[in-house]
């Protein structure tokens, strides 16, 4: 619909006309401000946890592990220079060669959800798989935070 609207505006004499290709759903998924009629169902954005330890491509595993342990955490999120999520490192992988690059150690292609993903969907996905959390990214794959199954269940329980 928007390409036709843009074309029509140009024929009406408007000279600086742009078509936002990915539209409202992209904006919402990125967590940008909207005006909405009702609260809607609870989403991943409402139970987001920040504070994960981030490792960048090219970083040595030993350096990353030191930062993870200093923060008292047990996981590293590996991102590229645009903050796009590439993988995760946890568990026994931390005991690997400290000189290895994080991108060679990480488990690539982790599952992600968006800020506007309903918590019901998160629970339905993580619960049966026995997975404790999932990463939240914007539509471009850039890391935002983590949503935990425990938080999602609690939130839905409070809402019922």
């Amino acid at each position, binding site marked *: 619909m928007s390409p036709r*609207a*843009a074309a029509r505006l140009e024929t009406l004499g*408007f000279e*600086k006309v742009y078509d*936002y290709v*990915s539209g*409202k759903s992209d904006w919402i998924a990125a967590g940008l401000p*909207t005006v909405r009629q009702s609260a809607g169902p609870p989403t991943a954005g409402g139970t987001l946890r920040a504070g994960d330890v981030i490792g960048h491509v090219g970083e040595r595993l030993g350096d990353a592990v030191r930062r993870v342990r200093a923060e008292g955490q047990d996981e590293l999120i590996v991102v590229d220079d645009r903050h796009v999520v590439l993988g995760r490192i946890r568990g026994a992988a931390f005991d690997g060669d400290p000189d290895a690059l994080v991108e060679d150690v990480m488990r690539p292609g982790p599952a992600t959800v968006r800020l506007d993903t309903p918590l019901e969907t998160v629970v339905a996905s993580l619960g049966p798989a026995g997975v404790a959390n999932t990463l939240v990214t914007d539509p471009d794959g850039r890391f935002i935070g983590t949503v935990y199954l425990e938080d999602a269940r609690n939130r839905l329980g409070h809402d019922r």
Partner: protein
Amino acid sequence: MATRIWRDELLRLIRDEAAQLVEVLPPPEYEDEHIEGAISIPLKDLDRDAKERLDPGRPVVVY
């Protein structure tokens, strides 16, 4: 032909050029949820409302 843009450029146009954001979807969709600052001019009403409600000197972004 209108320029196709993605989110980063939209944010720049809003910030730097006071772009006007227009939702051309049917009114119920606008009322349900719309981008903050956007106005509603459904496609079928563009001919009637565009010149009255939009500043031709500023960028217009439709979605």
